[in-house]
C-alpha cells in the first residue's frame, strides 16, 4: 500500500506491505541505513528511533503505526542529539559503532525527558540497548558530559 512517512522532517512516499515493521521500511524502502537491525524482537535497541518523540524499537512496531507521525532517526538533528554526539566524540565512546545509533537515540530520549539524569536514571533508560563491544562505562560518562556541555552553552 502507498503511505507517507515523515522522517527527520522529510516526507517519503513509499509503497510497503502494511504489516512491515518500521525498521525495514526505514532501511530497505526509504534507504536510511543508520538505524540498525540487531535482534528483530525488541531485545537489543539497535533499531531505536523516536516516533512523535517517544522512544520506539522500530523492529517491533508496524510501519502503519508511524503514519502521520514524526519519525526521528540517527540521521536527524536535535539539540540534545548534537550535545550527545559531541560528548560521544569527546569520550571516544564507540568501538565497532554498530549499536551506537540506537544508544544515541535512547540517550536523546533520556535527555528529552530528564534534564540531568543520575546514574540510576541512565541505568534504567539505557539497559534496553546492548553493546557487545562493552562501551557502557563510556556511554554513561558521555551522557553526563552532554548535560555539562549543554549547561555550559545555554
Amino acid at each position, binding site marked *: 500500500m502507498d503511505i507517507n512517512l515523515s522522517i527527520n522532517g522529510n516526507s517519503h512516499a513509499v509503497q510497503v506491505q502494511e504489516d512491515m515493521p518500521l525498521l525495514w521500511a526505514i532501511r530497505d524502502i526509504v534507504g536510511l541505513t543508520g538505524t540498525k537491525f540487531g535482534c528483530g524482537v525488541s531485545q537489543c535497541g539497535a533499531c531505536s528511533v523516536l516516533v512523535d518523540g517517544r522512544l520506539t524499537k522500530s523492529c517491533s512496531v508496524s510501519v502503519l503505526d508511524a503514519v502521520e507521525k514524526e519519525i526521528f532517526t540517527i*540521521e536527524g538533528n536535535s539539540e540534545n542529539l548534537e550535545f550527545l554526539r559531541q560528548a560521544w566524540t569527546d569520550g*571516544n565512546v564507540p568501538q565497532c559503532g554498530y549499536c*551506537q545509533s540506537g544508544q544515541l537515540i535512547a540517550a536523546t530520549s533520556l535527555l528529552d525527558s530528564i534534564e540531568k539524569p543520575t546514574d540510576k536514571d541512565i541505568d534504567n533508560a539505557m539497559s534496553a540497548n546492548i553493546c*557487545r563491544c562493552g562501551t557502557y562505562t563510556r556511554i554513561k560518562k558521555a551522557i553526563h558530559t552532554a548535560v555539562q556541555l549543554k549547561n555550559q552553552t545555554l
Partner: protein
Amino acid sequence: MSSIQKIDRRDFVKLFGLASGGIILGCSVASDSKGFIPIESKKGFHPNLFVHLEENGNVTLIASRSEMGQGIRTSLASAIADELEADWQYVSVVQAIGHEKYGNQNTDGSRSVRTRLEPMRKMGATAKIMLITAAAKKWNVAEVACKAENHFVINKNTNEQIFFGDLVADAAKVAIPKEETVQLKKVEDFKFIGKTLKSVDLKDFTHGTATYGIDVRIPNMKFAAIARSPVTFGSVKSFTKNNAEKVAGVEAIFEMPRLIPPTGKFFGMLGGVAVIANNTWAAFQGKLDLDIEWEKGANENFDSEEFKKILTKRVQKTGKLVPGVRGNVNTAFDTAAKTIEATYHVPFLAHAPMEVPNATAWFQGDKIEVWAPVQDPQTARSELAHFFEVPIENITINVPFLGGGFGRKSKSDFVVEAVAISKKIKAPVQVVWTREDDIQHSFYHATSAQYLKGSIDKEGNLSGWLQRVGFPSIVSSFKPLSDYASGFELNQGFTNNPYAIKNFRLESVKAEANLRIGWMRSVVHIHSAFGINSFVDELAFAAQKDPLQFHLDLLGEDRIIEGKSKFPFNSKRFKNVLTTTAKMANWGEKLPEGHGLGIAIHYSFYSYVATVVEVSVIERKVKIENIWTTIDCGLALNKDNITNQLEGAAIFGMSLALFGKISTKEGAIEQNNFFDYEMTRMKDAPKIHIHIVDAMHEPPTGVGEPGVPVIAPAICNAIFNATGERVRSLPLMDLGMV
C-alpha cells in the same frame, strides 16, 4: 594500483607511480603465520602497507586489516603519521579490498599492531626523508639542515618552510632511501604513538553514516534469508513453500545444497532453503512460512548436557600425554601434605556480534564482486575461487565496517551463501542472517572440561600439578575426526603454563565435535585461564595462603623464557601487572559485608594481564561492583583505544561468565535470541579501572583479546572470597546466581 613499477624485492619500501598526482609508497611486511588456514601464497614482492601523499597535503593510509571495533584504522594511521611528522588533520584511512598484495589480512590473533608497527613506522620515516630531500634540493642546502614538523619541511637555518603537499611532486623523483639509513624516532619524541588519538571514524559512527556490511546497497539488489537445518550438517529432505510464496515481496524460493569444504581449508556453507525477496523483512517472513522436513544426519542425537557428562568422565581418567612433562607428579602427590582436585566446565559459546552475519554478492559469470564484513577477506576470496571456479584475480572482496567480529566473521560461510544465490538468480543479492540464525548456526567456541589435581608440600608450597583437558578442536572444522585438541590450541595457556612448578603433567582427552567449532575472542585462553586461575585460588585456600602471594610465589624468581617467537616470556613483567592491580584494588583491605575480591592473571597474545574483581553477593545473587585490569602490552600505540578495548573485554568476559551458554537437545541449539542468550547490559556494568604499564621500549603485543580470559575466574574467585561457595561450572545464571 595498476601502475605498479618494476619491483626489486630487496628494497623494503617501494614507490608506486600514480597518475592522479601524488605518490604512493608501499612496503612489505614479513608474513606472519596464517596458522592452519592455508591460502594461496605466491612468491614476489607483495607490499601490504600503503601510504598515499597527495599534492593537497592529504595523507591516506590504506588499511589492510578489517575494522571491527578494535580501532585498527586509527592505530595504523597514527604510527605512520608520527614518523612522517604529519598534521593529524590531513590523515585519512581507506579500507583495502581483499587481495594478496596486502599480505596476510586475516584480522585475528591480536596481531595487527604486533606485526605491523615497525614497518608502518619505517614507511612514514621513509616518506619523511624523501620530503626532506626534495626540500633540501630546493633550498640547495644539506638535508641535515632541514627538519619536518607538522606537515611542513623547515629550513633550520632560515626558518623557511614548505608544505608537504608542495613537495610531493619533487619527492616522487627522489631515490628511496635504503632501509638501514632510515632512522626511527626515539620514544621520547613520539607525537602520536603512545598517546591518545580518537577514532578517525567517530563522525560516521555518531551520525549513522558508517557503512557496515548490512548497509551496502547495490542497484537492483535482492535480499535473501536462508532456512538452515537445526541439526548441524542436516539436509533438506523435502519442503513445501506453503504461504511463503504469498508473502508480498517474495520472488523466489529454492533449495541450496550444502557446500562441503576440501579437507584442511575453507568453511563452505551449510545449505538449506533460500527465500529471495525485494526487502529483508519479506525474506525473513517467507522463511518463517516454509515447511521443511530435514534429514537430520549424524548429529541428530547430540545433547550438550550428555556431552558435558561424557567429557567430565573422560578427564577423570588418564588421557593422552602432552609433551612437556616435568618431574613426576605421582611422587609429588604421594609425598604431599595435602592434595586437592577439581573439575571445571565452560559451555559452548556464540560470538553474537551486534551486526549479524551478512554479505552482498554479485556473480557476473566470469567475475564476482562481494561486499562483506569479513575479518579475513583473502580466505573468502580463495574460497570463492574454489567453489565457483572463477579465476581469483576476477574476484573482488570489498570490506565495509564490521559491526563486531569476535572471530565469527573470520569464517566466510555467509559470503559463500551470497555468491551461490547471486549465481542462481543472476542478480546482486544481500544475504542477511536473523539473530536466531546467528545464535543457532555459529562456529561455536568449544565447550570444555578440565580436571586438575595439585599437591601442597609441608611448607605450604605447590609441589605437583596434573591437568587433563578435553574440548572439541577448531581443527575439526577443517579436518573431520580431529578428536583431540591440537598443539596450537593447548599452547594457549595449557602447555605454556607460566608457573614454576617442579612436577608438572598435562594430558588431553578425546572430544568429538558435533557442532561447527570456531574461535572466539581469546579462544582457548578462556578455558585455560578459567581452570588454572580457579585452581590456583583453590590451592591457595588449601595452603592457607593469600591468593595474591600464592600467585607471586608460583611465578617464582624473575626469569625469561625464550620461545620460538621474538617475544620471550618475562615473569617479572607478569608479577608487575599482578602487584599493580592488587594495589589499585586495595587488595587486603577489609571489605563490606557480602563483598569479596578475586584475582586472576593470564598471559596471552604475548601480553601480561592481571585482573581483580569485586563482587557483592546478596541472597546468592552476584553483582559485579568493580573490575581492575592492568595490561603490559609493550609499546602502547594508542592508549585510550587500549583502555577502551580492555573495558570492553571486561564486559565481554562478564557476559560469558554470567550468561554465556549454548546448549543442544537432539542436535539443535536451544537458544534463540538475546532473551535466552543474554548479554551484560548497562545496569549490570561495574566500574571498570584500566591501567596500562609503561613499557614503551618493549615491542607491542596483543590488546584486543588478552583482557577477556581473566574475567570469569576473577569473578568466581571473588564469589568464593565473599561466600565460600566455589563456582566450577559456567555460567553463573545456570547456578541461579544472576
